[in-house]
């Protein structure tokens, strides 16, 4: 931003000698961005800009409170920075994320027929900047909302790491009501955004007969229905498509049709009230996730010295090279819990079949069964946050706590 002008100032400038006048937006990469009367932005030489008029008063958002229907169930919306609602200021072209219940209801009017809402902002970050400590805050905030009477909780979240966060919260929180993570793959400032459908379907799921942590996102490229995924079994499988989120090792636990908002849960879905509200919010942050590749130097593993836990995404049934096994053994001998998962993502780890696997087992590696590497990482953080005895750590890591492990591989690829 320029020192001289503020966004909204009217400036005159020269564009290759052609005089122009417009609203000053910002300075970026050595150019001044000016919005012309036609609405177009252009970049001009900042040196040619002169002030015509200081920014006028910005039209103040009318405190138009959206009516909420008190007969509907109370749902909490906790925002972490994923934009389920945004506002465009056409005067300057700026897009801002919106977080209050009013803002969200204004952006997705359909929500008001599903529930009444209390909204809170926990964080306003890009989801790649999530950390274990924010996960803890999130678990606490959800816990508080349920304790205070929410019949369901919506967590709006950037899609990049939504699956990590949802699985982390799964371990920390026993919930009798639905806790539904939702985001959008196409930004909320576009008419085609998936935010409306995802938001409404997620709210419907949050009001449904569900009692676990879930992720609700588009199931197909159509605006036809959302899938409800178990938090510990879902993974983002496409950089940009609406239907990026996919369950692994099991079918989604439900679907929500759009626009009817009919919720269909499978027999696998944990039902409302099956669990008593409880918070176990300790996490061990000194845990890592390592993706093995052929030729990996054993030294890379040394970067995790001092860690209490390491999840390896090995090849195939759960392997690393013979050369790396020594380094793995060193980490274990130094007290770390090392859990093997597979970079195949689908299927079960089995280190009994091949030599390197057997060597890993004898080094003390814990087989991660059919856990997703990401769900294994957040689980390891949680287990090590609550338990230090290696045998009990092993037992917890190989037990099914929140659906992250299935004893039987009964689902297709």
């Amino acid at each position, binding site marked *: 931003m320029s020192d001289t002008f503020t966004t909204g100032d009217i400036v005159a400038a020269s564009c290759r000698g052609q005089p*122009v006048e417009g609203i000053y937006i910002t300075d*970026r990469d050595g150019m001044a*961005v000016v919005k012309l009367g036609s*609405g177009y932005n252009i*970049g*001009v030489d900042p040196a040619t800009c002169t002030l015509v008029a200081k920014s006028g008063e910005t039209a103040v958002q009318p405190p*138009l409170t959206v009516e909420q229907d008190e007969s509907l169930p109370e749902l909490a919306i906790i925002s972490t920075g994923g934009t389920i609602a945004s506002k465009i*200021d*056409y005067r300057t072209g700026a897009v801002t994320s919106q977080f209050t219940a009013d803002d969200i209801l204004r952006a997705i009017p359909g929500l008001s027929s599903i529930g009444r809402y209390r909204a809170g902002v926990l964080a306003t970050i890009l989801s790649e900047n999530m950390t274990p400590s924010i996960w803890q805050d999130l678990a606490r905030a959800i816990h508080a909302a349920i304790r205070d009477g929410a019949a369901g909780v919506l967590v709006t979240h950037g899609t990049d790491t939504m699956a990590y966060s949802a699985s982390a919260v799964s371990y920390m929180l026993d919930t009798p009501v639905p806790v539904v993570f939702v985001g959008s793959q196409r930004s909320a400032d*576009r008419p085609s955004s998936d935010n409306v459908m995802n938001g409404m379907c997620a709210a419907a799921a949050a009001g449904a007969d569900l009692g676990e942590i879930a992720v609700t996102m588009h199931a197909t490229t159509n605006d036809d229905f959302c899938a409800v995924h178990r938090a510990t079994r879902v993974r983002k499988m496409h950089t940009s498509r609406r239907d990026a989120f996919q369950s692994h090792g099991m079918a989604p636990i439900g679907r929500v049709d759009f626009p009817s908002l009919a919720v269909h849960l499978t027999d696998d879905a944990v039902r409302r009230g099956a669990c008593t509200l409880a918070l176990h919010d300790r996490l061990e942050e000194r845990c890592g996730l390592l993706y093995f590749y052929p030729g990996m130097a054993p030294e890379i593993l040394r970067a995790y010295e001092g860690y209490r836990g390491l999840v390896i995404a090995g090849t195939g049934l759960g392997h690393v090279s013979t050369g790396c096994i020594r380094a793995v053994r060193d980490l274990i001998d130094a007290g770390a819990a090392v859990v093997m998962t597979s970079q195949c993502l689908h299927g079960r780890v089995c280190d009994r079949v091949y030599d390197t696997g057997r060597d890993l087992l004898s080094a003390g590696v814990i087989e991660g069964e059919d856990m997703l590497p990401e769900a294994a990482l957040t689980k390891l953080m949680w287990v090590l946050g609550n338990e230090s005895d290696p045998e009990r750590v092993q037992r917890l890591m190989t037990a099914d706590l929140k659906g992250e492990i299935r004893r039987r591989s009964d689902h297709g690829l």
Partner: protein
Amino acid sequence: MDYKALGLKAGIEIHQQLDTEEKLFCRCPTTLRKTGEHAGEFFRYLHATVSEMGEIDRAAAEEMMDRRQFHYLTYDTTCLVENDEEPPAPMNREALEIALALAKIFAMHPVEQVHTMRKLVIDGSNTSGFQRTALVAMGGILPNGGVVETICLEEEAAQRVEGSTFSLDRLGIPLVEITTSPCMFTPEDVQQTAEYIGMVLRSTGKVKRGLGTIRQDINVSIAAGARVEIKGVQELDLIAEVVRREAQRQTTLLAIRDELRARRASVGEEVRDVTPLFAGTESSILKKAKVIRAFVLHGFAGLVGREIQPGRRLGSEISDYVKKCGLGGIFHSDELPAYGVTAEEVARLREHLGAADEDAIVIVSGSKEKTACGARQAQHRARRALEGVPEETRKMLEEGSTSYMRPLPGAARMYPETDVFPVAIPDGLWEEIRAPELLCDLARRFENDLGLDAALARQVVSSESLPLFRAAVDAGIRPNLAARTILGTLKELGRDGVAVSRLAPAEILAVLRAVEDGTVAKEAIPEILSAVAAGTAVAEAVGAHAGGMSDGDLATLVQAIVADRIDFVREKGMRALGPLMGLVMAEARGKVDGRKVSEALRQEISRVI
């Protein structure tokens, strides 16, 4: 009409598809496809986004009144960007350079840094709900002194297949939008300017040709009227007529307004459910309606039915608004009894609504929700009749009249396309851009340098086959032969059902070269090209018509024919040439040039007489 007195002002926006390798913001080809070739289909809803006033833009809101699913057809030539499932690629440099070349022709100022914007469009024609558009250059001039305000680079919208189904092949094809100021004052001015700009566009050699590849939007107003934007005028010849009719329309609407004011007319507030009144109606439309509503237009009698453009009445304007609710239109009392509605029913309705003779009545029928919406829309438009001419976006109908499309967008609904980085246009790049030779100049040059006659030269430069013609000339083909083959022969063959589109430029050149080499006679061109179009190799097709008639063979043939009819020849002398020509040509057609035959015959006759 005296347009000067009326205060006519008009400007145009010309949208021209560019013939680039790839689309503007993805790497798909710019190929149009047949819908039957689609590879997939998906559907979406679009949601108007909230503006800074906490309100949804009226134009956007109106599009959404009748909530619709939009269906899209995908192809093996479209990708996730058209599907709104992947961020756009960087702006296509080829398209940008074409826009800059145009800017150079109009002596414009290119912006120093091009910013791509999103313009909201929620009629379904853009999967994203917006159209990407970027201002490239400003401030140009036209030879007639008019002003080219801007050149923008935009992405083309998806083609509507029918209803709410769109085809994604067209979405994302680069468009240049050339906007003039309202610098034209007669209908003819507008048409000539459009013609000129069209010629300039074609001069780049990089624009798509054919129906729908260029579209003119025309802004028209008269002094006391209002700015009306008429979309989608595809036929150049109709431009002047469209302007004329709009001037007429605005004039008439103003006259109606004055009459209404004089009558102290007003729009009845109350909309009544009159369904029971039509319990036994014979009107097929009213019979199947769940609900029939009506309201009174006080003092409107006779004016609702007044013609404001050929085939258009104030009633049509009201109908247009009602259609936005998903209804077919209205009935109004100026046109009744008709359509199965009896005089008795009208009388009963008048009585029921307490309408006086000078009042008009509007009837809407359909579902409960749609009729409520329709009545509101009809009242809205009727009220505006009291004010004069509404600012509107309209679409052209056949013949040049127009119908209502949507309100004029208020302020431009634009915000930055953050997924596309701004593109700098450094001085170096701008200097490197060369303006192409204008086709009008080129035609003059062809006339002077190549000896084409003026009409043929104009025809050549405006033809899609100009590159082929130039290649032919470069290859040493005589310009007239090239021009006549390319413009004449091919067209005629096409008309006769030959698949001329299958002929590759190289094949046509090879045939022409064979003529110039003397391998075949130019009379053989149609037959050779027909054979090639049917799948014969060029060499083979040429071979079939070459060598069959050497000079010696021709001489032998001529001698034989003359000898056979020697008495006749001796009798007629040189006048025998005509009749004998036919006999020789029956054998030699396509194998030897007619002039050569005529010459050989002349010599033989000379020899024998």
